[in-house]
């Protein structure tokens, strides 16, 4: 698995952490987007994620490079899963290392915001009463 990847497999955050660990860093921040059971009081059974894989991987890498330029951080890894995901499963994992913690947090948060803004990935939500493609809610859905 590359450190900017779309994958069908379970995301193991520890592997992302191993990628970004660096002797010149004192801080690692990670983010995991997980499948929430209840959204606005409605129960989600599971999600199906679809990606435009080649483009999505290129954009993850571009966001990664942008983050490394913009923040005082060293390394970043970003993986998004596709296919069927049950509640509590990890849909996206990001890990960032930085010499100082402030930069690690800011870089990680910026990275997930960018992912949700324009990486070509979509989720379809399955509920007891039917299914639908989720519209972009980039500002804050998770």
């Amino acid at each position, binding site marked *: 698995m590359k450190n900017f990847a779309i994958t069908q497999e379970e995301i193991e955050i520890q592997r992302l952490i191993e990628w970004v660990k660096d002797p010149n860093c004192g801080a690692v921040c990670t983010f995991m987007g997980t499948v929430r059971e209840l959204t606005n009081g409605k129960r989600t059974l599971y999600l199906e994620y679809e990606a435009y894989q080649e483009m999505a991987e290129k954009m993850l890498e571009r966001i990664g490079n942008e983050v490394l330029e913009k923040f005082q951080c060293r390394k970043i890894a970003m993986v998004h899963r596709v296919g069927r995901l049950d509640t509590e499963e990890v849909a996206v994992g990001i890990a960032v290392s930085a010499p100082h913690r402030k930069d690690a947090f800011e870089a990680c948060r910026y990275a997930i915001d960018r992912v949700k803004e*324009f990486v070509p990935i979509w989720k379809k939500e399955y509920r007891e009463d039917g299914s639908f493609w989720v519209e972009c809610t980039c500002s804050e859905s998770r």
Partner: protein
Amino acid sequence: MEKLKILCFANLGEKIGKFLEIPVETELTVHQLRERIIKSYPQHQHTIEMCMIAVNHEYVTEETIIRKDDQIALIPPVSGG
């Protein structure tokens, strides 16, 4: 006559198929291509208008000229994460 191949995703992919072929005679812009697709699927005009268009894995503007071997994709509002 050439055919442009276009990838569709998510709700749009379900509605009109994941791979479209649009016959074209001349060079055209992204804007013109979008109009052509809407003409073929008028009942999905709104969904198509909501899409960004990517050419060779890059989001492009409406004025961009499409070349025959470009990989074109209609990108509905994303909802990853």
